């Protein structure tokens, strides 16, 4: 049950990708030129260094943002647990939810006493990260 759906809206535009990678390539070229310019003691090295760093940072940021949006584009299906109990002997079993399950439905006979078992609980467990707050 724990899976995420996908869709065509997940695709990144190839034009955007081209622009990102072109900017990245030019910025890297600017950094290489900056290193050369430093060895020649050329003042342009500072400009190239600035352009190179800005370009790398900008393209990395845009790429990260696009990837983050893709990661968010999914509907998560949480794992649902069904608890089945024997009302006579108290035997309890926990399994994954199946379509047609509902609370207080009589299901398969008990493995121990052969009495019909009953679904007593259906729920999902959430592991929440607790943020520390003063309030």
């Amino acid at each position, binding site marked *: 049950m724990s899976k995420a759906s996908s869709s065509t809206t997940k695709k990144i535009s190839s034009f955007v990708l081209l622009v990102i990678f072109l900017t990245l390539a030019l910025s890297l070229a600017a950094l290489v030129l900056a290193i050369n310019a430093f060895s020649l003691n050329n003042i342009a090295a*500072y400009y190239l260094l600035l352009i190179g760093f800005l370009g790398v940072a900008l393209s990395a940021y845009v790429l990260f943002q696009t990837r983050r949006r893709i990661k968010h584009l999914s509907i998560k299906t949480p794992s649902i647990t069904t608890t089945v109990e024997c009302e006579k002997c108290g035997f309890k079993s926990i399994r994954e939810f199946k379509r047609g399950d509902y609370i207080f439905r009589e299901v398969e006979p008990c493995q121990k006493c052969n009495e019909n078992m009953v679904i007593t609980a259906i729920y*999902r467990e959430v592991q929440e990260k607790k943020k520390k707050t003063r309030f």
Partner: protein
Amino acid sequence: MNKMAAMTALQNQILQEPFGEYSWILNLLFYGVFIVFMFYGQRIQMMVMLREVEGSLYKLKYIKEEGRKIAIETMKEIGKPQTDPTTRVDRFLEYFTISPQTLDPSGVVWKLEHILDVRDTRFKDEIKLMAPAADKTQANNLENTLEAAMALNYIYKIVRHFYLLGKKTLSLYVIMQLQMILPLVMREAEAYASALKAFAYGQPIGDGVGALVAAKLTRGYQTRKIAKDCIVATVPMEGRTAYVVKAEGPGGNVGKPGDAIKAIVEENEGNIATIIMIDAALKLEGEEAGEVAEGVGAAIGGPGVDQFKIEESVLKYHIPINAVIIKEDIGDAVSPMRKEIFDAAHKVTERIKQVILEKTKEGDKIIIVGVGNTIGIGQ
């Protein structure tokens, strides 16, 4: 101006050292950026906002399409229709309800009730046509699935409308308002998205915790139909007679608790010591999901018809009305029931017993109503 001159001087001093004779380029760049922001600052801000809204709109479009896909797939799987239900589902998603005129508010509740009844009948007829093989429980679940898909479709269309309107008119205020409420809208859309699968599979949802409490109380006792989609069981509790009411499960259904309470009160000629209503309520940020609180009044949401009827009934015979609520957020309310909320049902049962002991005496008759969608909860 003095401030700006000082800034320019400081900038010159800093930049002159490493850049020497080329520092004018940076000066020019600085002035350029300053002028651009002075004239186009608002437009840039607007573009940033529009981009943000656009990102959310993409997400909404995806969620909406997924909702439609799930609805169609479920319809095909359960309903076994002879023709493709896609066109019918698409038509259903555009369905609307016009609320009654309130210029003269007298009698508006009955008008609203009538319109809601017509809507419900129309929905059920449509489901029958789309899914002829579905039984009553499945038909109720399919109706809920389609309603969630409808809500997603509506949210998407409204956000798209304001996005395009803002873009067309270039009005900062239209875009700003949309961008400001967007986090809340997205939260609601995500909640409906998780509700879709819960409805399609028939899983109990957080909103059904009231019905769950009632189901636990009625377990093992004979039930009878008391109002449309509502059942009641007569349960002995702490020496009192409790009429426990809930919607008829396990299909997705809220029933008509207002009519059920009215019928029981009339059956007993108003001889009811107290009414206890149990419902899920929206929690405030900072509160824990599954927290139980107690109060007075008719604990019931929805369009207000049932709350009105309950208040009318209790007023006629001056019956005290108590409420026990289980706190959860909107996401928890419409998505599969969380363990914390499920566990809260036990705490609520204890609280009800406490209220009965404190507020009534032996031999009294009381009404306990488990309010909420009973999807995935039998009796």
